[in-house]
């Protein structure tokens, strides 16, 4: 047997992750329909024009406030939360993992550092809860979401903001700040989708965030596997094409939103919906739409992860009811 990916998340975390993903996708689709409205005019129209899109953005924003608060409280009041928080704190090993990853990319290291591994091939306990990238994602997203919630609430309460900062233009600056801040998260989520959807061993989706830890059967019978065990897996026929295509799309998406965030300085919503001319604008329009397509892929993968969880749950249930069926093994694609 090859120890594939042991479950790492609790059931609460898997549910939270899915809800957060849905909510953040809703915020991206509405928020960037506003900020890049000339590039994403179809998205703006699709979601009910200005009025609809702003209303949806605020509803999703309240959802985010609720989710973030829930998470903070859970981390504070439970032992598991506090212990998981300790496991998320970056250590020297994480820096070593990043350095070794660069060497691995350049062909100067044979293996990825344990702190970089998604595909473990090790006992669950030998692999950290999160890779160094995972830790970075948690920290950066946590800081980002907090700042976005604060600036979002300030924008919402414009009268309060104007009272505090004296002018309307100051309030407007917060709108710009809020939109530009979200760009970092947008780029990070595109990378996150690539990282967890297109690993050759897990393609088309790494399931650790969907199948909770307590549902993953663990076996340590067979300890004599050489290496990480990846040699025993066969590559999906479509992996090469799809992973390269997604790599290109994610790159184009990240470069485009980053460029647009520099070019589109000032109040993000112009007086009139106008598609601007010029080659750069055309390229940005194509690129930003590609970025939004990457997000749609992420949304589909997130829903797919939940379908897999349901299937897995049903399989376990059947196994329990008929314990002698087969030879007692849990039918699993991971063996």
């Amino acid at each position, binding site marked *: 047997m090859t120890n594939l990916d042991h479950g790492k998340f609790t059931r609460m975390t898997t549910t939270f992750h899915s809800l957060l993903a849905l909510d953040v996708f809703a915020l991206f689709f509405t928020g960037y329909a506003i900020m890049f409205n000339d590039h994403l005019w179809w998205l703006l129209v699709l979601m009910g024009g200005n009025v609809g899109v*702003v209303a949806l953005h605020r509803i999703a924003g309240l959802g985010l406030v609720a989710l973030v*608060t829930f998470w903070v409280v859970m981390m504070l009041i439970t032992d598991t939360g506090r212990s998981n928080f300790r496991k998320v704190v970056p250590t020297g090993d994480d820096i070593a993992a990043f350095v070794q990853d660069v060497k691995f990319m350049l062909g100067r290291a044979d293996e990825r550092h344990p702190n970089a591994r998604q595909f473990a091939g090790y006992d669950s306990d030998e692999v950290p809860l999160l890779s160094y990238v995972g830790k970075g994602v948690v920290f950066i997203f946590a800081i980002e979401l907090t700042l976005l919630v604060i600036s979002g609430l300030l924008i919402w309460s414009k009268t309060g903001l104007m009272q505090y900062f004296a002018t309307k233009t100051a309030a407007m*600056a917060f709108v710009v700040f809020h939109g530009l801040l979200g760009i970092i998260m947008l780029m990070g989520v595109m990378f996150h989708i*690539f990282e967890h959807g297109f690993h050759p061993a897990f393609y088309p989706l790494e399931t650790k965030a969907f199948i909770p830890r307590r549902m993953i059967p663990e076996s340590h019978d067979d300890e004599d596997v050489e290496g990480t065990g990846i040699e025993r897996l*066969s590559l999906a026929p479509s992996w090469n094409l799809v992973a390269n295509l997604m790599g290109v799309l994610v790159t184009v998406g990240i470069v485009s939103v980053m460029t647009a965030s520099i070019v589109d300085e000032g109040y993000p919503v112009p007086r009139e919906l106008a598609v601007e001319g010029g080659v750069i604008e055309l390229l940005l329009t194509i690129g930003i739409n590609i970025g939004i397509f990457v997000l749609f892929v992420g949304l589909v993968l997130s829903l797919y992860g939940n379908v897999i969880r349901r299937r897995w749950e049903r399989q376990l249930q059947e196994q329990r009811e008929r314990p002698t069926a087969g030879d007692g093994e849990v039918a699993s694609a991971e063996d």
Partner: protein
Amino acid sequence: MTGYDLPEDDVDTYSRSAIVVAAAVSLAVTALLAWVAAGFDVFYEGLFRVGPTVEGGGVGADWVAGNTMPALDLLIALVHAADVILGVFILFLLLLHWAAFRRLAARMRSPEEAREGVAADGGTERPEGGEPE
């Protein structure tokens, strides 16, 4: 015993009561913040205040682009810088993973090899062609 042990109760988990408490606190805080954001009022005009692309200009359309407060200018400049610096770093991470994934993929059995290999080495057949879920 060839079966797997389900970890079940061995693993750390969150208690139901903790989840209920956190959910209650979260809803209360959200409701409070929504109330504050709406100016200590029920939503009656709050939702649709920004509609600058509306015909004739909605609220916000007359806000002059540009901002004279140095602190806010600095804040925006900082976020611009963060966008670019983190953007370049994220691109690097993407290329790093893309390259690492390609190296890992090269170590895996190719799809054709897997099809032939099952018969040749009598190894265990992967039920779904080696494609993990």
